[in-house]
């Protein structure tokens, strides 16, 4: 088992004819992911290295029965592309695009909440990787191998860092989920923690958070009430000044709210071990799984 992606995944990539979309989608296919389609308006009927391209998601779903989508289209068109995929009945949508306007994300989030069974991962995220099964997005799969640690993170490169530290210690992953660094993520820590809790392959969960918002605090409460598996956390941004956006649109300390310290304390108060460095996180994981 794994979460979100597995051997039955049939992936369709929006923006497959762009340079980023093409590069990463072909990487995903080379990893073994079943990439069945691409969508680029106006390029229907063509193909990208044998992957058929459609003008609309509706056509792609009809012709290929795709059940997952990656969104690589530019920020100004990305919200529309997510809505189109959801409207066509694609249940799992991973939006890689960075820089989508926050008000667009608000409308997308509200609309998707009304469509039962549709899950959005991201935007501004690296995607999802279930090692040995499927990779959708831009996660460099070579650093990860199958195993029993589930990873959920707001940051891409920090995920690779943590995953690599685990791999060096002989540990693998059930699934790695990048939920993204934007203020309105389609899926929260809580959503993904619930999936890992129910997944038999996952024995331990690593969550990597950062400054801004209160989704880590929300996760802490949820873990105490509903997660039986051990959770190890990392929080980035202890040195971030208030009022400044630290790279990710959602990474901002507002007044005294959203600090790394408050998040780490909230998690610790709910029994979650928090590593102060990525290395310490990996060491705690080894200790917990070895014991």
């Amino acid at each position, binding site marked *: 088992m794994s979460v979100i992606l597995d051997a039955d995944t049939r992936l369709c990539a929006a923006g497959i004819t762009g340079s980023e979309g093409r590069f990463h989608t072909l990487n995903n296919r080379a990893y073994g992911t079943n990439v069945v389609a691409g969508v680029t308006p106006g390029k229907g009927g063509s193909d990208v290295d044998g992957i058929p391209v459609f003008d609309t998601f509706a056509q792609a779903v009809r012709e290929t029965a795709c059940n997952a989508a990656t969104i690589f289209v530019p920020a100004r068109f990305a919200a529309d592309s997510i809505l189109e995929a959801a409207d066509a009945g694609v249940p799992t949508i991973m939006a890689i695009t960075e820089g989508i306007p926050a008000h667009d994300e*608000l409308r997308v989030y509200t609309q998707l909440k009304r469509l039962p069974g549709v899950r959005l991962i991201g935007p501004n995220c690296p995607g999802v990787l279930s090692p040995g099964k499927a990779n959708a997005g831009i996660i*460099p799969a070579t650093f990860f191998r199958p195993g029993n640690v589930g990873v959920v993170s707001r940051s891409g490169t*920090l995920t*690779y860092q943590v995953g*690599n530290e685990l791999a060096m210690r002989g540990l693998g992953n059930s699934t790695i989920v990048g939920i993204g660094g934007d203020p309105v993520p389609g899926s929260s820590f809580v959503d993904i923690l619930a999936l890992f809790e129910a997944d038999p392959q996952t024995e331990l969960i690593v969550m990597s958070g950062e400054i801004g918002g209160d989704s880590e605090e929300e996760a802490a409460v949820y873990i105490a009430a509903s997660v039986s598996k051990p959770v190890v956390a990392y929080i*980035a*941004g202890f040195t971030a000044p208030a009022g400044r*956006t630290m790279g990710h649109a*959602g990474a901002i300390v507002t007044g005294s709210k959203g600090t790394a310290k408050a998040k780490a304390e909230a998690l610790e108060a709910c029994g979650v071990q928090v590593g102060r460095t990525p290395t310490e996180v990996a060491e705690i994981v080894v200790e917990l799984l070895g014991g």
Partner: protein
Amino acid sequence: MDLLEYQGKQLLARHGIPMQAGKALTTVDDALATAEECGYPVVVKAQVRVGGRGKAGGIKLARDADELAAHAGAILGMQITGCTVRELWVGQAVGIAEEYYASVVFDRRAKSPLMMLSRHGGVEIETVAEEDPDALATLHVDPLLGYQPFHGRRLAFAAGIPDDLVAPVGDFLAKLYATFVGEEASLVEVNPLVVTPGAAGVPGERELVALDAKVTLDDNALFRHPENAALRDTADDDPQERMARARGLTYVKLDGDIGILGNGAGLVMSTLDLVALHGGAPANFLDAGGGSKAEAIKAAVEVILSNERVKAVLFNIFGGITRCDEVARGLIAAFAALEPGVPFVVRLDGTNGAEGRALLAASALAGLYTAETMDEAAALVVALARGESGLPGTASDG
């Protein structure tokens, strides 16, 4: 992007919100000319993005030209919480019977716009929320439904707005919400929203005027609002931040002496934390982004080194999309072009890490040290910034 008061007011006025007559200006002469147009008494207000203007003496009433010249002269150039006052707003003084508070905030937790209204304006709203939470009426608006007149009525009655002002307050809130959505803001706040003197209880006798405006716009939406993008005031910005923006780099100036570059926002934040844990002080946040090419690396090094406080630099790259050999090539080019006078510690790992490390080793650059892990790299750069030389076993041949 945070707007200055007068810029925020321009946006509100665009959506029909009533304002005093007035102008933003930069000289005492212009202040006097504006006052002639408005008629005395006038208000002079410092235009800075930080709070506490009133207490700092940045807001004054002037009854005649002599008073205005004295106040305007004193406020221009004044320092308010580290910001230099370069612009003033001068406008008509308005009679004040009551001060309200109104705002629309992008509520990340609820994932919908949050509207707030209170009869207790003119003070810090956080204080009102803490001391007398019932005095602050709030509600969330469904972003797909948008603002409806009943929202305004509900807020107005909950806040205890007098009957004759319920309709005008509702009309005002509709315009405030239109500003929030139309300009793609994350915050639109009017504090105080004043009620002008007049017979209470008689509809139409008393008016609402927005005396202040605090507006924060979504940077990611500025491409749809070129007129707002042009409001970005670079005068207050730090020279390194301006330079970085011109080069398309994400850079935040900090007050330490260790320059930092990494790829990915989370990894860079983590690197800053690690340097601090080792007792160092980061000079900046700089995310070179995914797929950093050699040219971008060179541009980033230029920005980092233009900060004279920087005594040592740490590169922390975990290559995913970013290829470490590209980063190494960029760094070698930067060394050749810029001849940095400070030591560099470089940690390259991930995609093409071995190739990147081999390139650096072959180039044997003076003052360039390599490290295997983030922890080692952070410890080494802190030691170098303190003037200690490379630690045994961690320095490269360079």
